[in-house]
């Protein structure tokens, strides 16, 4: 498997580690424990098809990436810097 890092270019999967769904970027605002926090921490879909995940290019530029990929075909459809996505620049 290979991922095209927006900074480093096309790289072998061994340089990356996955974290999970992009939900982790959207931390709830609630000060205390709430259903939103429960959702954020624990509840995930398991789609057969297109999903967006966070991957860490730890053995490369140390960027966190938002990777859109298809869990059925393994196609990688889009890769962007998570910081850009978070700022809304993506």
């Amino acid at each position, binding site marked *: *498997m*290979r*991922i095209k890092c927006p900074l480093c270019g*096309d790289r*072998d*999967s061994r340089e990356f*580690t996955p*974290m999970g769904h992009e939900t*982790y*970027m959207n*931390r*709830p605002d*609630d*000060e*205390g*424990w*709430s259903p939103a*926090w429960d959702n*954020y*921490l624990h509840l995930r879909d398991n789609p057969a098809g297109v999903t967006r995940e*966070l991957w*860490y290019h*730890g053995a490369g530029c*140390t*960027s*966190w990436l938002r990777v859109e990929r298809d869990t059925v*075909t*393994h*196609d*990688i459809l889009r890769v962007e*810097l*998570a*910081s850009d996505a*978070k*700022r809304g620049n993506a």
Partner: protein
Amino acid sequence: MRIEGKGRIDVSTPVKFSFDGQGYTGFKGDTLASALLASGVKLVGRSFKYHRPRGVLTAGSEEPNAMVEIGRGAAQVPNVRATVQEIYDGLDAYSQNRMGPLAYDLLSVNDLFPNFLSAGFYYKTFMWPRAFWEKLYEPVIRRAAGLGSLSGKHNPDHYEKAFAHCDILVIGSGPTGLMAALTAALGGADVILCEESNEFGGRLLSEDEEIDGQPGAEWVASMLDALRDTGRVRLMSRTTVTGAYDQGTYGALERVGLHVNGPAELPKECFWRINARQAVLAAGALERPLAFPMNDRPGIMMASAVRSYLHRYGVAAGRKVTLFATNDDAHRTALDLMANGVEIAGVVDARPDANAQGDYPFFAGAEVITTKGRKALTEITIRHNGSEQKIATDCLAMSGGWNPTLHMTCHMNSRPVWNEEIAGFVPADDAVPGLIPAGACKGTYSTAGCLAEGVEAAKQALSALGGKTPEVEIPQASDAVGGSKPLWLVSGKGRAWLDFANDVTSKDIKLAAQEAFTSVEHMKRYTTQGMAPDQGKNSNIGALAILADATGRAIPETGTTTYRPPYVPVSISALGAGAQGKGFAPERFTTSHDASIERGAPMITAGLWYRPSYFPRPGETTWRQSCDREVNMTRSAVGICDVSTLGKIDIQGPDAGAFLDFVYTNMFSTLKVGRVRYGLMLREDGHVMDDGTTARLGESHYVMTTTTAAAGEVMKHLDFVQQCLRPDLNVRFISVTEQWAQFSVVGPKSRDLLNGLLDAPIDNDSFPYMGCGEVSVMGVRGRLFRISFSGEHAYEIAVPSRYGEALYRQLVTQAETLGGGAYGMEALNVMRVEKGFITHSEIDGRVVPFDIGMDRMVSAKKMCIGKPATLREGLKETDRPQLVGLKPVGAVKELTAGARLFSAGADATRVNVEGYTTSVGFSPSLGHFIGLGFLKDGPNRMGEVVKMVDHVRKVETTVEVCSPVFLDPEGEKLRG
């Protein structure tokens, strides 16, 4: 039998090798199989279950019979296909799966009772008594049924892994692959051409065939020159592409040093990861055996293999050859052999309308119905025009047509498609993204068609890469496709083998169908059809055709089993190359490593780091003596310890304080410059991730320390927080773990010692407890932190790593003059347990701040990572196990880590567990064992006597629950 002047072997270079201890001579360029056949050796192995005599069937990596062991001793390699192994001087090969000499295998008695060993035999027979399985049945069966054996020793040979990158990978170098590679290179692509054999050319080296008026082999040579001239083609021979993976990644196994007696540094094999933007699959096709009664005797071979041995190795596979086929290949084989003076005893063609193509005894519409010859073929019986006829022969060449080698196209879940015209499976469209099948592996069998498809596939790949497509002239070649009529099973008495390697016969398939294993996947597992090292390359199609017939279904409806990587067996040594011994993980050494070794310290690992365990002095015979002395020495004078392995992260920027406030539970934006604070870091689920001190070096400059174990994880976490959660914060950070060599200087004489080395002395005002700042140490700019992990008056001094070793030696020497010295991890651990300081033994991922008495460190004034989750129901219940100290009060004085805690009167069973111990040590300061642990409602049970039981080490100790701080609870020493 060698035919003079024939073949591509180098007859000027004889090669001596041995097989089963007997010496033979072959020539450079021979495989073990060709050299043995040339020497008249037909019996090369015994079959898996029935121990039937077996000979060479094929001339390639699909060989199911001729598997041998190479070498003896630690480097012994089993299951090597003699058809792939090239000979070299000193090659030492052995037949396998036999008991006693190969010719008189004692286990061939199995062959007399074939009905006992049919499909499902083990499942049916060895069900009960259950207890017999492990002790009796399995060892006996494994002894009898098996292939080669391992030495059981570490393999001393060198193997390697490597990476390669190209625009277009071409798999196979027959007519299709050569044309594809040339077209791709002329189109400007960087090309890798992989060929499984030692020579490029594929079947062209094994046939008497012309291209552009040149003999095939000469055309191949001219093509290789043309490929080299482009400067764009990397030619990789002896390299089998074994698997297709996501995004154009291919695995390939190269036999680097298996064909020579090379030096130790020469890798035996290399496992390549090839990253290709596009690929052309030109893997060709494999000839299909015929299933007729007693078709497994030595001397019965594939027709294509007989031609390979003739044209490539100059070997006649027999003196009196017969042929059995469903297509023109039998005739071609007969003609080629006759042209080289070999007698043809008969050509048996299953097609009634076939005609003889030469002057040989010919039988149209005929079938071979049985064979004779115990250790080698002596006779066949044919059925022709309703009568039977015997023919004396020592070699029967068979051909049931061809199967496209489409395995790679199925590696990403695609299923092949049945093509009625060629009576075979062909690859589905777009089976693997970026992999374009061409030529015989796509069902195109004529040489002319292959040449054209090679060009076309390369053009398609070039277009996909956005490049130009060159005009390439397609050479003239034969357009004969060798039409074949399927013949799946010849009826008659006796067993007809399908899977030679696993001894599966047509009867086994029918039995499976009869017993309702009608799905092809079930049939495979029930009969073990296709599960041998050849993975059914020879037999799968035949087996499923028989299954289709037995279940009254068509072949496409029956379907095929899944082809998975690897295409050929890949040795674990190659897959795991570089990861043996020291290659498993990097070793990290501190700057004080050599100095510690010189002082006799045994080293222990902490993550990848090596750290000294203790420093034995003359007269000390146990580690405990050294450890006790180091603790006493440090608490009474001064001790030195290398703490460079702790993670250090340099954090700068206008929002550095705000960032730290967000990742730590407590406040750092309010920390004064020149001061240090202990911080607690949580995961978002509210559990403790790590802890450590962070120093504020400047208004917008901090340096964080992490534990040794979690340094990498914390860095990743900080990157996550900044990039994914708070890119609005203007903060930058970088690891400085390696930049600074840092040493703790611990004990009442620590300041005296430092003042002997610092260029400007310090005092309690300039460096109070939890103070920090820059210092000059022996002319070098360093940093000093007054922090303590021992409860003593202590410092950590850091200098750039290049000075680390020199400073450490100075510190230890000075300490020794003050009555102190170096201490190791054991003493460090005892001193921190005495003070109740936690490590990852305590914060093991299951612990929330409440559990370690740090609930109040979660600031109410701000948000931080993990804070909402700490407020979850149940995370502040008093019956959670919480941190306590433990000391022995009964007759047994020993404490162990990992033991369970029980109420004094309770049985030591799982349901009664109330806690566990995490860290223990013998405190020389207190004169007894002390421990830390977690106990339900612990803080409210001080003084209670409970029971510690270590079921593994068989220790039971009565302990008293106490404060986790055993020494100096007021912290007076720290501030001294």
